[in-house]
């Protein structure tokens, strides 16, 4: 009796297990088996694709994803990073458990682990569109062993531009009240902020903060990179490069650059212009302050405070939003804020050794890199997601823009992942931009009344017009993307630590004597590090790029 009952139990459990497992496996094979989904494609296939940046879970069906799937017959199973990136890479590499394709900014690590397959032969044979886009950058794409392992997004084509990212930002209201003055130096900037602050010590019942500084964790740009822009350098960080003779100068201990900047900040702090909490708040507190509308200005990269801008807009505080300014120490220095169009090499889309059908994968990527694929990925379906004017210009109606500006709609539209593939940046032969957010029509449609007033006040069409164009002699750009040896990386980390510790002390110094002491300590500590071999490493990298790129 007892044994029989156990047997029945066992049988039932086994049955259950098989049904569950069976259900799982049939689920997996389902998407690729729909018959009419493959009218003009080579074959039905399914690939896994891991994207090494965090983001919303990708819905199984998105509008664009489904259209692409119908056109190619290929299903992509996207997975996005959850948690710590380096840890995930470590686990992946240690286990050898790679997805078919990986998007990562740490391609070198995967190459070292022999996790990726070389792409150059595949591209030559199977991917004419990719070859067309990336051909001009062929040598730059090559890893140190001469193979191409990854394709970054946005290969620059005609009219490629990069938007404004790093800049000194100022509240629109401040500009308006000052009557749209021409602000080109850091001193003028401080004066304008001071005037407004004296007149309006409080905004919406809270104390006005004339200048804000964020130093939390690695988000430390205000104190470490702002001065290179003031001194006329691009976003290189730590050293200035002279593109004429490829020489590097280390600016972190330069009295005319770094000390000058910290000293000015110190004056501003003692005047009460800098937030008292600047060095003790975290990123969330920083965003909360910007969103409250009481911060008049700061130095930052745009992507870092995008949420605050969105929040201000949502509260209807449009005039408390920020516009970028191109500042230098004095008018004899020419600002160089805009990034040279280019790609970050050793990042991007790659195929892993575990991919069973690399040809299918590259053919799929090639379709996405075609003009048809790119319009679909960036703009969507004509007539539904974007319109074409009589003279052939792409634009979006108010309704379309409103729909896509909603985060949830955007997620269901593209999954926020369809652009993690080889692509172009710039204009198509017909003059429209590949990337919709670079299309002047789209940018202009985003300007509100205050923006229009400001742009009229300065007599320009877009904010980009207020900036100098990027210096095309800087072929090496950016300096920070040159891969360093372990020793160089440790130097970087040590310098980061010093840059974290001393600059706040200098800014907060009560007297000039204190300031001088902190500065001396800082310089002494920096000089204890091996600055020279770091400089030599980078100089070699710059020379190599200037000669071969």
């Amino acid at each position, binding site marked *: 009796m007892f044994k029989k009952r156990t047997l029945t139990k066992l049988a039932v459990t086994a049955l259950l297990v098989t049904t569950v497992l069976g259900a799982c496996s049939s689920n997996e094979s389902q998407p690729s088996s729909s018959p009419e989904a493959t009218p003009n494609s080579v074959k039905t296939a399914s690939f896994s694709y891991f994207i090494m940046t965090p983001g919303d879970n990708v819905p199984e069906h998105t509008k664009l994803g489904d259209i692409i799937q119908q056109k190619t017959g290929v299903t992509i199973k996207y997975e996005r990073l959850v948690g710590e990136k380096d840890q995930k890479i470590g686990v992946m590499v240690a286990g050898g458990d790679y997805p078919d394709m990986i998007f990562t900014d740490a391609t070198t690590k995967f190459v070292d682990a022999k996790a990726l397959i070389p792409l150059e032969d595949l591209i030559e044979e199977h991917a004419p569109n990719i070859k067309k886009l990336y051909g001009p950058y062929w040598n730059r794409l090559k890893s140190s062993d001469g193979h191409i392992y990854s394709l970054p997004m946005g290969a620059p084509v005609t009219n490629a531009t990069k938007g404004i990212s790093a800049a000194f930002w100022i509240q629109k209201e401040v500009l308006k009240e000052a009557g749209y003055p021409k602000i080109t130096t850091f001193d003028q900037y401080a004066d304008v902020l001071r005037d407004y602050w004296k007149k309006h010590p409080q905004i919406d019942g809270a104390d006005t903060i004339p200048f804000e500084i964020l130093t939390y964790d690695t988000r*430390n740009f205000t104190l470490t990179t702002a001065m290179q822009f003031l001194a006329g350098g691009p976003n290189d960080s730590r050293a200035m490069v002279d593109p004429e003779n490829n020489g590097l100068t280390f600016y972190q201990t330069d009295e005319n650059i770094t000390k000058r900047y910290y000293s000015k900040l110190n004056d501003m702090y003692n005047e009460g212009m800098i937030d008292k*909490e600047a060095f003790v708040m975290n990123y969330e507190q920083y965003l909360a302050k910007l969103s409250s509308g009481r911060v008049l200005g700061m130095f930052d990269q745009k992507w870092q405070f995008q949420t605050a801008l969105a929040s201000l807009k949502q509260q209807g505080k449009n005039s408390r939003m920020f516009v970028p300014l191109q500042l230098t120490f004095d008018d004899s220095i020419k600002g160089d804020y805009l990034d040279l169009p280019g790609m970050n090499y050793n990042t991007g889309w790659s195929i892993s050794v575990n991919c069973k059908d690399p040809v299918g994968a590259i053919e799929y990527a090639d379709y996405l890199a075609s003009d048809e694929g790119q319009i679909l990925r960036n703009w969507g379906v004509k007539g539904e997601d974007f319109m074409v004017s009589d003279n052939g210009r792409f634009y979006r109606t108010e309704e379309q823009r409103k729909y896509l500006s909603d985060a949830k709609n955007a997620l269901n539209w593209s999954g926020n992942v369809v652009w993690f593939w080889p692509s172009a940046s710039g204009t198509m032969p017909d003059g429209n931009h590949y990337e919709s957010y670079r299309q002047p029509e789209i940018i202009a449609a985003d300007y509100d009344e205050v923006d229009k007033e400001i742009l009229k006040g300065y007599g320009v069409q877009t904010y980009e017009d207020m900036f100098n164009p990027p210096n095309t002699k800087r072929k090496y750009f950016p300096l920070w993307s040159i891969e360093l040896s*372990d020793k160089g990386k440790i130097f970087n980390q040590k310098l980061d630590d010093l840059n974290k510790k001393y600059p706040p002390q200098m800014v907060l110094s009560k007297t000039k004597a204190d300031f001088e002491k902190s500065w001396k300590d800082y310089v002494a500590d920096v000089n204890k590090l091996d600055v020279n071999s770091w400089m030599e490493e980078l100089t070699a990298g710059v020379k190599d790029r200037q000669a071969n790129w």
Partner: protein
Amino acid sequence: MDAASELKANPKARSVKPTRSLWKKVKQQKALMAMSIPFVLFVIVFSYVPLWGWLMAFQDFKLGTPMLQNHWVGLDNFRELFRDDSFLRVIRNTLAMSIINLVFGFLSSITLALLLNELRSIMFKRIVQTISYLPHFISWVVAANLIMNMLSIEGIVNYILVNLHLIQEPILWLSKGEYFWWIIGASNVWKGVGWGAIIYLAAMTMIDPSLYEAASIDGAGRFRKIFHITLPGIRPIIVILLIMSIGHILDAGFEQQYLLQTPMVVDQAETIDLFVLKYGINLSRYSFATASGIFKTLISVILLVAANQFAKRMGQERLF
């Protein structure tokens, strides 16, 4: 160790050969031993087998290369660890915060448990207990944001102190290196006091009530009973927990310092774990990270054994 006491109790055992008695014992307890096999296996598989990864510490390990094919560098990684400028500072911070956590953690939990134990109203006791152990379930990410807001210029701490006229101007608590260790200690107490008290409360329920009755008859008051019955009653638990925490003294924490540190207090905030994250794992220097892991383990084992021996010599309860 136990053989000696056994001999005293049973003089005949001397004549039996030790091997035979051992096998006899095994035979007697074969059911028990069989039951413990899965757990022993578990420990071997998950705690001992991974130890072979320690080899990394003596190599220049590169991800993706099979373990034994890496370049061997001897003790270079350890040398680099001990020679690093920040190493001593990091150890100092770790020990300081650990000791603060240890002392205040124990004192606060035991005090809370004693107070709760004296309460007559079961309802009130339960409410206090629940409220006091709830913070244990808040993740440090959330807790750190709460603490940062509490300690900001407009935060509640400054608000109360200024309104009580204890300070004139609001203080930026997180900008002062000298406060950081204490902030960590206090936040640990806030987060752990209720949770820590549970185990002592459990130990207190094991104390024979007749002891309290006898003491009452002898005229002992509340405090006498606490000092002469309750505390000695839970002493074994306290000693065991203390020995175990001493073994963890180099684990001063990771998230709290990572989340609460500001550029103004980095010199006080960096613990050995943060240092390893920054200079080891983040730079893909797995060998260096392993070397510091080994260093930590060795110190822990030494401290654990020392504390245990000390407890033994003092005639106290001990771990092994």
